Every structure is written in structure tokens, then in C-alpha cells.
């Protein structure tokens, strides 16, 4: 099993959600996160006020998938989240040792 983690632009969440549903993903976890990548922070100006934006708001999406489905999920997110501009985000994939569905106690792929 794999954990696919994607950090994307906030407004892309709906499209990513749709794309994942289309490839058969049953559930996902999202959180509002802030951070920076190569684009670092930037300065914004509102009239006389100039202020530093150190961390850029993003949405983190986490999906647990079977090994065989991981590539499809990564592709779906890549396609849906891409605008071609800076700050589109990143996806990474982690191996997962164990998954348990709390209600039933099912383990492994059955719990996905």
C-alpha cells in the first residue's frame, strides 16, 4: 500500500477531488497548509502597506491506495492540479506498513 501526498493550489482542490473520484478513489484527507518551495515567499503591497508573505497557502491531499493504483492516482492529481505556472505544488508517494479500518478491525488492502 502507498500513501500519496499532494500539496496543491487551494482552488484546484475541487478538480483534484473530481479527478480522483473518476479513477475510483473512495476517500481522501485534506488540510489547509502553508509553506514554500522554490518560489519562496514574496512581498505584497496594499497601498502604503508592504508586507512579507513568507508562507504560501496550499491544500494538502492525502490518499491511501493499493500499490497498483498509486501511479494512476499520481497521474490524475498531476493532470488536474497543473496550471503550468509557478507554485503548482508537489506530489510524493510513501510506502505504508499497515492500514486498519477502526470500525471493523479490517487490515491491509481490505481496509482501504
Amino acid at each position, binding site marked *: 500500500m502507498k500513501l500519496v501526498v499532494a500539496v496543491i*493550489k*487551494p*482552488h484546484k482542490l*475541487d478538480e483534484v477531488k473530481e479527478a480522483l473520484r473518476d479513477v475510483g478513489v473512495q476517500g481522501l484527507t485534506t488540510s*489547509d*497548509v*502553508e509553506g514554500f518551495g522554490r518560489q519562496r515567499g514574496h512581498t*505584497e*503591497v*496594499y*497601498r*502604503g*502597506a*508592504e*508586507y512579507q*508573505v513568507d*508562507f*504560501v*497557502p496550499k491544500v494538502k491531499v492525502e490518499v491511501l491506495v493499493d500499490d497498483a493504483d498509486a501511479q494512476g492516482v499520481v497521474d490524475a492529481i498531476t493532470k488536474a492540479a497543473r*496550471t503550468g*505556472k509557478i507554485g503548482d505544488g508537489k506530489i510524493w508517494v510513501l510506502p505504508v506498513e499497515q492500514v486498519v479500518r477502526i470500525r471493523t478491525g479490517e487490515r491491509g488492502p481490505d481496509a482501504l
Partner: protein
Amino acid sequence: MTGALPGTAAGRGREPPAPVARLLGQLRALDRACSPGHHGRWSARRRAELVDRCLRELFDAAGPPPGVALAALGGYGRGELAPASDLDLLIVHRGRAEDLRSLAERLLYPLWDAGFSVGHALRTPDECLAFAAGRLDAATSMLDARFLAGDLLVFDEAHRLVRGWLREDPRGFAARLVEDAREREERAGATSRVLEPDLKEGRGGLRDLHALTWVARVAFDGDLGALVGFGLLRDREREALEDAWEFLTRARSAIHLETGRRSDRLLLELQPAVAGAMGFVDEPGLTGPDGLMRAVFEHARQVEHVGGAVLDRFLAGDQLVVGAEVEPTPAGVLRALADLAAGSAPPAPGFLDAVERADVPDPVPWDDEVREAFLRLLRAGEGAAAALDALDRMGLLVRFLPEWAPVRCRPQRDPYHRSPVDVHLLDTLAGAARLLEDEDEDDPVVREARRLVPDRDGLLLGALFHDAGKVGLGGHVAAGVRQARSALDRMGLPPASRDLALFLVEHHLLLSDTATRRDLEDDDLVLDVAARVGDQGRLAALYLLTVADARATGPAAWTPWRRTLVRELVAKVQHVLERGEMGPELAERLAPGTVDAGFRAALARAATPAMRRVLSGLAPSGAQRPERLSALERLMWAATPLEHLRRLAEMAWPLSAVGSARGVVRLYAERFFRLVRRRVGWRGPE
């Protein structure tokens, strides 16, 4: 210790002794005597009496030695037993506790076996005093202590020691109760606001009522009546407290009966059952559970306020604001409250009496005097919210603003809001006032924006009414505009204030929704927001309202995450409005009579690629969707002087014949002309 309804625990193979068996039967009969939603204070007293009788018989049968007394403590001592309350007992003695262990066991085992939750202590009178001196809850528990059986003299000694000690410093005792109430609010939340209120420990809950009786007992050796007698509690307030006490007791008992456990929190899952038991049924715009919560909030709010006021008055002594004469007219009432809002001292009971006696017709006819007084009150900033709240608790606010009635105490069932609608509106008002004034504000955009707000009254009124449409009928923004318009029109405000307030009510979600859900790098989107907002002053006011609204909503609503996104949008929209791209400033430079070619060129330079394609008559790419073009339509419609709009229409007219009937340019042109017809009445070339 978890309480449990007696008789529900599995028996332990032993028949209970006769007094306990009888008690179990009597309690079951009492529980059935009325519906689960109607066990109020009478039922609680009756339950205590039944337990008293059983305990006296058990105590006598246990063969107590001389010099020993049995007493009831806490809620049981007050004679108020909810269905699953603990029985707190005290055995007062003069000897050694070890000698009484077997007595306690003979007394308590039959009760434990029958499933009662019983707490007990064995203490000498001196130990009672030592405990009371060490812990506030031990002291108040002893204040409520009630003699049940045995040696009255030893009980009296213990009781007198504790009361005597507390009476040495009644103000100090009251101050500790105030501190305790504050800690309880941190721990259990406010019964008057949270969606899953704790009816006992929460602020405005039953514990606040108990605190008043303790103050009355320590300071005046009396009950709530004594507080009235000594001028600390007004008659009307006492009625409100008694009503709340009955209501909260009923609701709490209903929870006990519903869950079978001593649980005082009105959880979401219990609300439908408790509402049903208490007779709250679905009404248009208000479900049964919402009706229940509205009543809980209403009562708890009275307890919170009156309880706080009584303690304030007691602690303040003669430092109260008596208030100049309250002129007994609607405007006079508002002026008196505005004076109060500007200060910080609590109002004296006499002041509130005078306000209540004033002749305030329902509804109040608004005239210049009333409006000026209302605006002065509003401008008092944070104090204004408190003053309007006080006005509402006296039942007067809805006479000034009938639109307030449907949002009063209305619960909000979503993950973000932590307050009922009306509390949220007042919190937002206070927050907006703070944003306009606060020197310590750390958001640099707020500090800039406050200087641009064109009309402060308009912002404050917008804050006051922004959620006025939450009346249980869906679509709260459109309904809010209707409600706000009806209120603002009645007030007879200057158009600038009225229009800004209405604009804010209509668009109070625009920045937040757009920033978190849409692509801020889409120029059309930014232009669209700029078109809807129209100018820099409105943008500034809208940002301040967005901040005040979110801060008043709850900790989850104004995160740095959300703030960064909203500020990015505001900065981008501000740049558009500053540069005058497609806005009034560009339009201004294009004086009437400008030749078409110049106008077209200027417009083309400022326009987005999509607009340029339209202007030059080029077919747009297949990806261009008509609904995105609507942003431009709105922008031109909102921000361009009529003369230029007309020229633009003339210029774009030929486009309405371009391409296929479903082509983008043509769709755009047709919709554009529909708008133009409405605005300038131009129907195409003659």
C-alpha cells in the same frame, strides 16, 4: 464518579432493605408522573424529600452513637435532585472517624447496591471549617448543607463555623465566585452560546444561579428575595432568573432521563429527543431542536447577564453609574445607553429600571432624533455591542428593529460559528469598531484600509446586519439584503451610509469565498471582483468587514491561511482599481466626445486578451467560455460612464452578427446588449 439512575445497576443478589425498596418504587413513580421534559424544580424537591425519608430510616436503623449527625450537601442539600444526580452526604461527628466507618457502611451499602451514586465524608466541625477554608466548592457545599438526622447540635456547630467564617468577608467570597465563574466559562464554555452547552457548569448555567443564592446567604442570610430587598436585584430580573432556573432544571432532568446518566451537556444527538420531550415542535423557519436551543440561549443569557450584574453591583458598592435622568422616549433611551456605552462602569439597577419604564412604542417610529441617537450609540464602538445587548435583554431592541426578532438566539449549526446569529452580529459590530480604532492592530492592511473607509456608519451598519438573513429559510445573503434594506430605509439614513451598508451585506462573503476557492492568478476573476466592488473605499470597508466577521465567527475562521489568501485578492483588486484599468479612472480620462478610434485603442490597451479579441472582432480560442466573459460585461456596466458605455455598445454592435448563432462572440454581444438596453436604453443603430 459517574452518576446513574438508581435501580438501573444490576442487583447483587440481595433484596434491598424496605426503605430503599420503597424509595426505588417512589422514584420510578415520580419519573413517570410527568413527561421527561417536565421535571422541573418541583420534581427535584420531591425527589429530595423521598430520599430524605429513606436516609432517615436507614440512619436510625444503623444505630448511630450520640454526637453524630447526617447531613445532605450540595444540590441534594439545596433540595434539588435531578434524576441522576449524586447524593452527597456528610456525617458530622466529634470523635474519631474510624469508629464511624461501620456506621457509614451500614448506611451506604444498601444505596450503593441499589445503584445510587453516593458520595460521603466523615468530618468533625473543625474539619468542615478547614476544608471550607481550603476549597471554594467545599465552602459552598457547606452553605447548602441541610440537616437530615441525628444530633442537631453537632451539625449546627459545623454549619455555623463555616458560615461565620464566610461572613467575615462577603465581598472576598463574592470575588472568588466571580473568579470561579470565569474559570468555569473557560472550562465548560458559555451556556448562552455554544451549540452543545453544559447546563450546569457553563456560564449562564445553573451554577451561576446557585452562586447568587450563596451570596444572598452569606451577605444577607437570605435567598434571592433578600437580593431584591437590598437593591441588588430588580423584580423583573428575579422573575427572569426564576424562569431560567425552572427551564434549565427541566432540560437537565430531560438529559438525565434520556441518557440514564448524570450528564449535563446538551449534546447535538440529544437535542431532538429533549426538544420533543419539552414540547418544541418544528415551525416554519425554526426546527424543534433549534427552538429548544433558542430557549436555552435565551434563559442562559439572562442568567449570565443578571448574575454578572448582581455580583458587579455587590462588589461595586456605591461606585455604580446611576446615570443622569433617562428621558423617557425612544431617543432618550438610546442617548442614555450611548452615554453608558462610552463609559466603563456598570449601570445601577435604578438606571435599568428607568430605561425599562420609558415609553418605547412597538414598533418605534424613526425620526431624525432617534436616528441620530442610534448612530451615536453605534459609534461608541465596542461599548455599542454591549449596550445593544442590554437593550435586547430588556425586550426593547426589536421595537427599534423588528428585523432583529428572527435572528435572536438563533443557533448556527455549522462547524465554524460558535455563537447564535444575534451574538455573532453584535460581536462583528464590536470587531468592526475595533478595526477602525485599535492602535495595536497588527494587520498592516487593516491599518491602511481603515483610512479609506468612506463612511464609518455604513461599515458599522453593514456589520450589524450582514447575517440578518439567517432566518432559517435558506439563501441568507439575498434574505439579508431584504431585511437590511427594510431596516435601513426605516431609519432614514443618508444615502452614502445606507448604500455602503447594503453593499456590504450583499457582498460580505465575496472576498472570503473567492479567495479560497478561485484562481487568484486569473485576471478575469480579479477584474470581476473589481467590477462588483466598484471603488477603493468599498474594497477597504469590505476587507474590514471580512476580518471582523471571521474573527467573530470562531478560531477556525480567520486562520493565517485564509488571511493570506484574502489579502492577496484584496491587493490585486486594489491594484486594478488604483490603475483604473477598465474602471472609473480610465473612463474619466476618456472625456465625452473622444473619437472612437482613441477610445478603442485605450480600451484595448487596458483590456484583457479576451476583451481584446472581442473588440478586434477576432474569433476567440475554443477554450474561451461565455460565462467568463460575463466578468467583463459586469465590469463595463458597473464602472463606465453611460456615454462611453453607449459608444462601446455602438462599437461592439457589429459583433452581434459575427460567427454562428452559438459562437462565443455572438453570445457575448447579445448578453452585452441586454445589459446595455437596461442601462442606457440604446437599442442599436437607427
